[in-house]
């Protein structure tokens, strides 16, 4: 009965209750549901298909509708119900929901990679879980436990296995989302929260592909400020910078590098990635002091660099230091480790070394190697999910 619901429904959140009458516990159950579902779809889809019908050589970073999403809600005491999968589709929200009126929401970003042997890998998912928890505390939200978060992500990946690109062709980008779904009129925290995970196959984040980025230093509009929410992955950090990004892109830049709000003298980060400067054997990145998002790619790259013998400094980075760097790169789940070819600050354009054999490429290839399973994972960063 539940399977018929899965195959027939256009799937709104209201179907969740029907499906959850047949709750799917654990990743095995999710996998078996998917297998049975696929076998039911004879005639409408190819049954033996390992992969979804996607042009894997031309993936960008746009939303591709996958098969399933995962969702769960909190109850008044703050615990989250056991979540379940449903067909990817619209959700229902009260117009007075906290997220719609007061921006009460957090996002995460993760990727699932297909290894050469076909196994699917997640990269340090517990760090995303912990980061969401920390963000929830800052934004007066209840959050799923680390275990519930990881379980939700795993179920989403497994159920959408055919959307994980072939090895080397990209990854399944995962978007865990936590938001105030309960309704209120006056300004207050919602009393009910929804945790949702959906995915989309992706390759390169920037339209430049893997070509080096050209950044613009924004002096007027800050991304965050002390006492604000910049240090957590709140949705409220993003809407206000759309305008800056558009202006920069219209002028030919790939993205924007923001300065601190208080003095406008120090670099912080890019719209959706952290930034690193390389000079000789030293790698420098702005310290996370509350305004900067503590990236998981950032953290991993720092560790890889230290292991390789580089001197890594996390500190205040005055914008003047951009002139002296030999290499610059950005890090992020969506962006990966991306070379920066130039940065323009107050009409002065500084160019950096790009290409093979450089620090950026060295760090990037080690990270990707670990994430895709071609380099041995001695740090237990990688989680195999089936």
């Amino acid at each position, binding site marked *: 009965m539940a399977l018929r619901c899965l195959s027939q429904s256009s799937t709104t959140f209201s179907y969740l209750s029907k499906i959850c009458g047949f709750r799917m516990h654990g990743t095995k159950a999710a996998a078996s549901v998917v297998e049975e579902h696929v076998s039911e779809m004879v005639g409408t889809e190819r049954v033996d298909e390992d992969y979804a019908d996607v042009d894997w050589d031309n993936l960008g970073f746009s939303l591709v509708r996958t098969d399933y999403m995962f969702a769960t809600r909190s109850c008044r005491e703050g615990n989250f119900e056991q979540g379940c999968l449903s067909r990817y589709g619209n959700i229902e929200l009260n117009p007075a929901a906290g997220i719609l009126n007061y921006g009460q929401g957090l996002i995460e970003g993760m990727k699932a990679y297909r290894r050469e042997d076909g196994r699917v890998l997640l990269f340090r998912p517990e760090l995303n879980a912990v980061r969401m928890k920390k963000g929830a505390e800052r934004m007066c939200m209840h959050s799923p436990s680390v275990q519930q978060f990881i379980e939700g992500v795993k179920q989403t990946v497994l159920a959408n296995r055919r959307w994980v690109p072939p090895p080397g062709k990209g990854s399944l980008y995962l978007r865990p989302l936590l938001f105030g779904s309960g309704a209120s009129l006056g300004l207050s925290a919602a009393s009910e929260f929804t945790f949702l995970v959906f995915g989309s196959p992706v390759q390169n984040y920037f339209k430049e592909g893997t070509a080096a980025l050209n950044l613009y230093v924004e002096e007027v509009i800050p991304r965050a400020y002390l006492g604000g929410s910049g240090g957590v992955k709140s949705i409220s950090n993003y809407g206000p910078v759309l305008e800056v990004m558009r202006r920069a892109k219209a002028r030919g830049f790939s993205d924007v590098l923001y300065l601190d709000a208080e003095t406008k003298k120090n670099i912080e980060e890019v*719209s959706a990635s952290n930034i690193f400067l390389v000079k000789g054997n030293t790698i420098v990145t702005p310290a996370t002091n509350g305004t900067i998002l503590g990236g998981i790619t950032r953290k991993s790259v720092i560790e890889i660099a230290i292991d390789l013998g580089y001197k890594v400094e996390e500190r205040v980075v005055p914008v003047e230091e951009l002139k002296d760097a030999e290499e610059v790169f950005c890090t992020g789940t969506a962006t990966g480790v991306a070379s920066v070819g130039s940065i323009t600050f107050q009409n002065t354009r500084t160019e950096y070394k790009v290409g093979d054999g450089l620090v950026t490429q060295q760090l990037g290839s080690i990270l990707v190697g670990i994430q895709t399973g071609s380099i041995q994972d001695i740090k237990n960063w990688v989680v195999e999910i089936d």
Partner: protein
Amino acid sequence: MIKTISSLRNSLVLPLHVHIRTLQSFSKYNVQAASALQEERKKPTHQDDDEYADMDWDNLGFGLTPADYMYVMKCSKDGEFTKGELSRFGNIQLSPSAGVLNYGQGVYEGTKAQRKENGKLLLFRPDQNAVRMQIGAERMLMPSPSVDQFVDAVKQIASANKRWVPPPGKGSLYIRPLLMGSGPILGLAPAPEYTFIVYASPVGNYFKEGVADLNLYVEEEYVRAAPGGAGGVKSITNYAPVLKALRRAKSRGFSDILYLDAVKKKYLEEASSCNVFVVKGRTISTPATSGTILEGITRKSVMEIASDQGYQVVEKAVHVDEVMNADEVFCTGTAVGVAPVGTITYQDKRVGYETGDESVCQKLRSVLVGLQTGTIEDTKGWITCIN
């Protein structure tokens, strides 16, 4: 269904806020029940002909009691808003990858409809909200309804929900226009489609203190807005980040928070959902709106009323020391009205202010309320009368 819930509420001996929560938890948080509720409400009932909805008009707070109808209008990124229409209040459908959910791409407004003694409904300067939403939409890279479309939607909402507009003197119908990026987007970019919604709820006093004086706390750790940010527009992104500070202040017994500027941390900005005024002698000062402060419509109106009454009205940088030395302090906002501040606490120092019937605050408040409820003649063209 409404009648059933209301009768249930009336028959139980419980405080009103519990009734409302019961009503909400029964019908609004549970999606299945909400859908069922939606089905029920579609059937025409004799209630549509009643003059008033079944509410306890003497005990309205600021909880959500959704009025029957909401208004929905959509637009593509490069298109125009068209075909707005009323529908029964109920859940909306959104893609999980909607811009508003993932990147906070949304702005909202707040306005009120009042019922006049003769039964007509009055709106207060809805065109100002319309323009403010347009400014906010532009800042957040969203298309917006035209001023005419916005005002028409608000009028339709007030008319269609007439029975939810409280009797004169008991409160007002709070109207919430909302503009959001509803289309799906994965990477950080503007949504490809937008939705404009208006819903409403009858309300009384915003603060649980009712009309009693407010006690404010000057916040030094959390900041509401920074220069260059979105603080000057009514973006949804300005609100969630202050919930923590607000919750902390309320738990310590304060009504609301006064925020300071992000740079020097010495200049007054505004409270969580209202502007603030400082009175010293015949001079009324309020922080200038230089991009971080929301330019309130009540604020603007009160400034004009005060000026007409012969006060010297000054928009400037207001140092926190000036606030601590003032004669009176009051807050203004659509939801809060003109609310007197009894005390402000700053760094463990608590200062008291004059309040009461002879205060400047009360004088300005009664003129504003008189205009809004139609008991004072509207010579400025601020009032729109409908029905």
